């Protein structure tokens, strides 16, 4: 599919997309990865200092500071693994696929650098088996690197199941470790993940690409883009009611509406879905919000996995949200009661609302359920669903009143403007 995706705009010195895809071209443009001939303690500390100076935070959804995660993994001692999270279970996101196809060496260089920094012995690239183009591109890249001796640590491809939850960090580490793709309960975020009783460092593909760029162009080049509080660039997939869906590389702090404009919306957007299906809706009054963690948090959203979906005028936000809620409910790992029972119940309520078949107690019940499900799972999956639904009730509050009165907007039954994988069960 990435033929239909194209980098819509990348400008300036620091960028992830637009470099040559083959190894020779990559080295000619960016130089070889600045790997040490001997990863001394001094080098490792220097590397983490550079990461810290850059202010890079994860691009896989949680936005956790990369330097902190690295320090944690370093404390685990040698012999561990670096896991490249290329799962991208978010249906509305394509950035990781595109990055792995177009700039695989950037991602792999990042993984090698992290392996050197944590004295890891293995790099495992996790991609679902069905993504043939991505897998082919990775295989080609790995072969090139092996032939050229650019892979001090072995690079191996693995195929976890293609489910939303399989890309969750702890579920991914557990899958690599024991074959079971299930998140586990981590009340102490300060405890590192483990694979084979050694430390494991799991990072999103885009984050690794940034690490490689920061290592070769320096943290200042990263900080020169974006904002002081949220530096660098991000890849964002723009889709929905647009003429040119695709992936853009933007500076952090770019106003949301400017990001989606590059995809040529087919009309004035009714709302934007930011951060993914577990993210939040943003209404027109907030379209100018800068794409940065602090500013998005202030409006109840997050950058999440780098997604911006445009909801056109001829669509019902409540109906689309009901579809998303059903999708998320079906993607539960099935381990925790509040998620297993709560998400389908919430999706049911939202569906009734969308159809204009709300009973008098529905809104109160929905709000109670949202409050009860939030934060009561082992992973963040139910939290994302709750946030999405809450933002829908807020942003589409004008429609809400009519729906509650049994008069849904005329568009509620139209085909969805959102993408859902074929594997999700649908009526």
């Amino acid at each position: 599919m990435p033929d239909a995706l194209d980098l819509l705009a990348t400008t300036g010195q620091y960028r992830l997309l637009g470099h040559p895809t083959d190894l020779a071209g990559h080295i000619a443009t960016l130089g070889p990865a600045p790997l040490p001939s001997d990863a001394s303690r001094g080098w490792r500390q220097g590397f983490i200092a550079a990461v810290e100076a850059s202010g890079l935070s994860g691009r896989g959804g949680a936005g956790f500071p990369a330097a902190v995660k690295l320090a944690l993994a370093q404390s685990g001692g040698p012999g561990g693994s670096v896991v490249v999270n290329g799962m991208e279970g978010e249906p509305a996101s394509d950035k990781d696929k595109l990055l792995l196809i177009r700039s695989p060496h950037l991602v792999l260089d990042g993984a090698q650098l992290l392996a050197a920094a944590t004295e890891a012995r293995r790099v495992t690239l996790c991609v679902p088996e069905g993504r043939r183009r991505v897998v082919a591109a990775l295989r080609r890249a790995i072969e090139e690197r092996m032939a050229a001796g650019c892979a001090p640590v072995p690079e191996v491809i693995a195929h976890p199941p293609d489910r939303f939850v399989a890309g969750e960090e702890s579920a991914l580490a557990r899958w690599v470790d024991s074959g079971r793709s299930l998140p586990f309960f981590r009340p102490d975020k300060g405890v590192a993940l483990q694979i084979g009783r050694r430390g494991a460092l799991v990072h999103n593909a885009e984050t690794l690409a940034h690490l490689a760029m920061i290592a070769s162009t320096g943290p200042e080049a990263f900080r020169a883009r974006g904002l002081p509080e949220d530096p660098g660039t991000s890849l964002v997939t723009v889709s929905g009611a647009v003429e040119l869906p695709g992936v853009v590389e933007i500076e952090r702090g770019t106003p949301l509406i400017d990001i989606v404009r590059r995809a040529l919306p087919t009309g004035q957007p009714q709302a934007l879905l930011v951060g993914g299906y577990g993210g939040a809706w943003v209404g027109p009054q907030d379209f100018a919000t800068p794409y940065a963690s602090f500013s998005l948090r202030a409006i109840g959203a997050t950058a999440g996995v780098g997604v911006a979906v445009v909801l056109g005028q001829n669509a019902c936000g409540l109906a689309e949200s009901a579809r998303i809620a059903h999708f998320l409910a079906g993607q539960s790992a099935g381990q925790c009661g509040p998620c297993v029972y709560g998400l389908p119940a919430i999706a049911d309520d939202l569906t009734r609302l969308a159809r204009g078949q709300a009973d008098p107690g529905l809104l109160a019940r929905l709000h109670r359920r949202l409050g009860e499900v939030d934060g009561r799972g082992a992973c963040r999956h139910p939290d994302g669903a709750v946030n999405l639904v809450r933002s829908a009730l807020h942003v589409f509050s004008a429609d809400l009143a009519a729906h509650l009165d049994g008069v849904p907007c005329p568009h509620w039954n139209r085909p969805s403007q959102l993408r859902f994988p074929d594997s999700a069960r649908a009526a």
Partner: protein
Amino acid sequence: MIRILIDPIACDAYGYCAELLPEAVSLDEWGYPIVDGRPLPPELASAAKRAARDCPRRAITLRERTSGH
């Protein structure tokens, strides 16, 4: 100050914790416990220990915290 931590994966909605500690644990409509994470008053400490011991799934751990997390 003791705080109750419930492992949502291990929990199977037996509901014994809510029976022993109604002041601190309530059940949602599907029988799963809701705790607000606040430290327990000292008089509830023994009931909390009993709840942790009685849970058939060993889903409850008690955390000693001197200050808020």
